[in-house]
């Protein structure tokens, strides 16, 4: 083999493990899933092609529309409120004046929940929501307010899961606070010269300057919140009355509980395309709102 040929091959050897993993563990399963989505596949017998029947059945399946509504409700509130909350905490951390060390401890504490195993977090929150002895109802009791059956009441179960999600703003908060620290000081000085108020500085300087980081995090949050699964599976099993039955839970139960791999695959592909679509739409809509330094 010529030296030139060898030199052309070497880089591919270095990326070979990733490439192999991509093909074997992502591309092939995705393609299998696409194929199964056009079949009736019970796992016990070989798949039988049925054309678009899975998609037609989904269209008429009230539960399918229910899980879409639930998932969109969860995702939209989680992403919107979660982003605002993470930004506020990041601003609070960065404007925290004295004692870098103390700020560091607060940052570590607020970040810590993102590292807590999902199962442990879900169980701790399930007990916090316990109607008798949970922390939330204890606080309501002390304040003289009526108790809430958080996870047991179809009106409250989904809000409870959303509130629990706000415990995990740590990653976004860390990213925002790092981005805030990178905002050139000259921008603030210019704002000071113009006599801009503190809130004005936040709105007109800080947020535009870190908008690329915000966009990135919003995209990631959208993708992750659309596939929420663990917390509803552990805490409510989709109940009560299907009020927390989310899209991913329906896929999981279709595939592994009802043995309907074809139906589950059709749902998975719809989700993949919808997720990419929503992410793409967010990206397109954000064009005007995101400011890249140097690009102007």
């Amino acid at each position, binding site marked *: 083999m010529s030296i030139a040929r060898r030199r052309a091959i070497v880089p591919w050897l270095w990326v070979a493990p990733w490439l192999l993993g991509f093909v074997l563990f992502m591309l092939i399963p995705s393609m299998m899933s696409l194929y199964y989505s056009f079949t009736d596949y019970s796992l016990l017998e070989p798949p039988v092609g049925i054309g678009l029947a899975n998609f037609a059945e989904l269209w008429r399946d009230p539960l399918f529309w229910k899980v879409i509504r639930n998932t969109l409700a969860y995702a939209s509130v989680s992403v919107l409120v979660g982003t605002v909350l993470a930004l506020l905490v990041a601003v609070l951390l960065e404007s925290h004046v004295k004692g870098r060390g103390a700020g560091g401890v607060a940052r570590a504490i607020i970040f810590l929940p993102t590292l807590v195993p999902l199962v442990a977090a879900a169980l701790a929150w399930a007990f916090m929501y316990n109607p008798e002895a949970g922390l939330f109802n204890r606080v309501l009791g002390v304040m003289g307010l009526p108790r809430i059956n958080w996870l047991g009441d179809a009106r409250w179960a989904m809000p409870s899961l959303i509130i629990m999600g706000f415990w995990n703003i740590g990653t976004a908060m860390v990213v925002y606070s790092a981005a805030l620290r990178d905002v050139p000081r000259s921008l603030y000085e210019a704002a000071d010269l113009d006599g801009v108020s503190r809130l004005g500085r936040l709105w007109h300087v800080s947020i535009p300057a870190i908008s690329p980081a915000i966009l990135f995090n919003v995209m990631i949050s959208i993708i992750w919140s659309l596939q929420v699964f663990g917390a509803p599976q552990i805490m409510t099993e989709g109940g009560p009355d299907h009020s927390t039955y989310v899209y991913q839970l329906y896929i999981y139960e279709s595939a592994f509980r009802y043995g309907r791999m074809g139906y589950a695959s059709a749902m*998975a592909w719809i989700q993949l395309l919808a997720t990419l679509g929503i992410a793409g739409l967010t990206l397109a809509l954000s064009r005007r709102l995101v400011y890249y330094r140097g690009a102007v």
Partner: protein
Amino acid sequence: MTPAPRTSRRTPLPDRVLLTALLWITAAAYLTPLLFMLASSFKTADSVLDPSAGVLPRFSDAAQAIDNYRDVWTDSATDFPTYLRNSLLVAMLSTIGMTVSSAAAAYAFARMRFRGRTALFVLVLATLMIPPTVIIAPQYLLFKQLGWIGTFRPLWVPAWCGGAFSIFLLRQFFLTIPRELDEAAAIDGCSSVGVFWRIILPVARPALVVVALLQFIGSWNDFVGPLVFINQPHMYTVSLGVYMFQSQQGQTPWNLTMAASVIAVVPVLIVFLLAQKAIIDGVATQGLKE
């Protein structure tokens, strides 16, 4: 890097007190669920469900605390010592694999010129957009055909192919290493493997540590993977074990469920306490824009 913009010069004292108070209230709120978990794990089965019993355990319950943890540890329906070993094995194997192969790919992306490099790197980043749970069902079928169901392989082999975030993080770090170092080594007769091994890896140790820690924690915490791929009780990981412990027939008392949860949290907590700054700084690079 520009110095951090501080509001201190212009922030009047009352505002400063308010901001500090707000910050600590937030931090306290975020710590509460963990403290509640810990406090509940020390109580008796009755007092944990008694709203009049107070949130904090009583000192007289000290013996109860030890009993709770022993009950979880020696529970006959579950086997936490084994789960802990399983989790440790899977987490270590996937950590080594993730670090090694992500570093290799990142090295090619940072240091080598080849056709299709940019397109390939975009593809790596694009996989961040693919929800992992979307393909978990067909992955199960694939692993079944490979004969991997009934082994730990589905939980750690994919990590040996590297991951998008790790590759991205390491590439960003490798790009900051001066090229003169590579060139000097190459003149001394180092091959690309030699440069990688003798120059890049030693210099990039902090970044490698971050990737390894995040993968270790991610693998330790994984719930969906073990839930789908592991179906024999003696192969449960800690996460799956805690879930199964809680959902055993009959209601598992909350004090024991919380004790089991604490057992799952402690290893992660230790890793975090040891490397808190490295982990947070590593996570912060996610926001880096090229």
